[in-house]
């Protein structure tokens, strides 16, 4: 592995924190200033991209949320109609609840599965490379494609899942997984996301697992710690930064769910799997009300920022 850290665990958190890049030693002050200018020039494309396509839209979405902003025509100020509109809309309300429920279920399941896979393949031994590749391979298929793949896989017409389950005697006749009931539609999406993303998160967790020095385990074992104790007292605490990263990625990703529901369940049956981002899309491009879409976006953004800040804060505080 690229990094071997032999420092005891208490010091590791500190050494892991990034050290400032060493500036190249230079003789004169003018030389240093010149070098700073060159640095600015190299950073300029990044600054332009980030400024124009990230900061400007960020401000713009806030600005739009204060206006009645039709797809075509002049915007007019209408504060706070876009925000009061959110509270009145039943579909928004059900979408909020559904998205929260989905994010909680998805994050928990995905974390358990990904961590399980990472623990399974953490040691080098014959065949382990094949397993890692097999678990990671679904990531090479685009998410939209993966959604279409599962649409076919779970369908009555050509999918093998129903045949297999009725052969095993688990279901009677045909079940319409993606559109039959709210639960089975949600279940289909959860299955799809597990298949597609477990390997990716496994890989991130694996890097965290492998950064734990072996002699820490050795010492614990000599002290007579059981496997479970080692996992609780050594693996989990030392992996806190990686776990924080993975949980943030997972929960943010699930709160923004779109492809899986748009393609696999079409938000149905009866809007029971309509996610918040689907509502944003509907407001903007079906009801042609960009202001209202911006209003929901701003609300979602605010919730996510608070959510991520709390999550990172909690995980950091516990590690200190």
């Amino acid at each position, binding site marked *: 592995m690229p990094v071997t850290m032999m420092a005891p665990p208490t010091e590791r958190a500190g050494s892991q924190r990034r050290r400032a*890049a060493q500036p190249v030693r230079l003789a004169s002050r003018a030389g240093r200033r010149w070098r*700073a200018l060159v640095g600015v020039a190299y950073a300029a494309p990044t600054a332009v991209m980030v400024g124009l396509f990230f900061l400007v839209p960020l401000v713009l979405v806030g600005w739009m949320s204060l206006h009645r902003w039709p797809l075509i025509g002049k915007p007019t100020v209408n504060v706070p109609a876009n925000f009061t509109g959110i509270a009145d809309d039943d579909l928004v309300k059900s979408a909020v609840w559904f998205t929260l429920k989905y994010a909680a279920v998805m994050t928990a399941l995905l974390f358990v599965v990904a961590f399980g896979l990472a623990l399974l393949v953490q040691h080098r031994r014959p065949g382990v490379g094949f397993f890692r590749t097999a678990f990671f391979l679904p990531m090479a298929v685009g998410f939209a494609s993966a959604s279409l793949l599962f649409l076919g*896989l779970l*369908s009555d017409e050509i999918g093998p899942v129903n045949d297999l389950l009725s052969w095993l005697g688990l279901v009677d006749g045909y079940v319409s997984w993606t559109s039959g009931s709210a639960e089975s539609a949600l279940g289909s999406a959860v299955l799809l996301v597990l298949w597609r993303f477990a390997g990716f998160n496994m890989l991130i967790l*694996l890097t965290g697992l492998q950064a734990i020095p072996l002699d820490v385990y050795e010492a614990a074992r000599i002290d007579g710690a059981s496997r479970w104790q080692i996992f609780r007292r050594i693996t989990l605490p030392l992996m806190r930064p990686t776990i924080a990263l993975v949980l943030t990625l997972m929960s943010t990703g699930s709160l923004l769910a779109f492809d899986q529901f748009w393609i696999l369940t079409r938000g149905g049956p009866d809007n029971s799997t309509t996610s918040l981002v689907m509502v*944003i*899309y509907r407001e903007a491009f079906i009801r042609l009300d960009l202001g209202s879409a911006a209003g929901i976006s701003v609300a979602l953004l605010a919730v996510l*920022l608070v959510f991520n800040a709390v999550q990172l804060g909690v995980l950091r505080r516990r590690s200190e």
Partner: protein
Amino acid sequence: MPRAGTVSRWGFYVTGTALAILFLSPLLWSGWAAVRTDTGFGLENYDRLFSSDNGIRLHHVLNSLTVSALTVGGTLFVATLGGYAFGRFRFPGRDVLFLITLAILMVPYATILIALYVLLGWLGLEDSLIGLSLVLIMFQLPFSIFMMRNSFEAVPLELEESARVDGCNTFGTLIRIMLPAVRPGLITVGLFAFLTSWSEFFAPLILLNSTDKFTTTLAVVNLRTASHGSIDYAALEAGVVFMAVPCLVLFAFMQRSYVRGFTSGALKG
């Protein structure tokens, strides 16, 4: 680690194999379903995929290739220069710019796409492959800049100093000394940019309006969403395979450097 008894070794291989089958079978099934026809096996599903009313056309594939090429090229350009600047130079505003770039990850992308749609309209880039590519490059930047900064930081300072002694300016040093040294990072960033841009769905859905600008992903999904009544599942699976094959081939060739670049980048964070 020498701890595995025979039982736990068997447990490992049985569990691993069962899970590997579970993870690989959907992929294998779609390959099988794509060539399965009423009479046996053949390419009829692909025929329908490319010829039915809602099917994909050559220009959809060309659109996808254009967007991918622009995104990969643009991401490599911006991230190489940016990574060099963040990893090797000190200048006012460096840390702020780096943090803002990483903050793109914190701001869910679906929330600003509505604003990007309006902004691209103002810039005259509505319904344009270039506009879409610029947005995709921006979404790639947090990961790419982070990756490239780590790669540049890992190059020994002596290498750079010796180049300067030999009379190279910073750009010459970048081209001749640094680029070869950060190649694994470049491959990872480029591969990631390709995989994302080739299969991205939501951004093109919002930013492209006319069907002749559609990327392949949009066109294939259109097979499902535009069909009233029955869906041609077999043609759909052919579309899935068609979309997945370039990614799987690239992945197979570059997996080693991709995973290595990924792990070293993530570890140093």
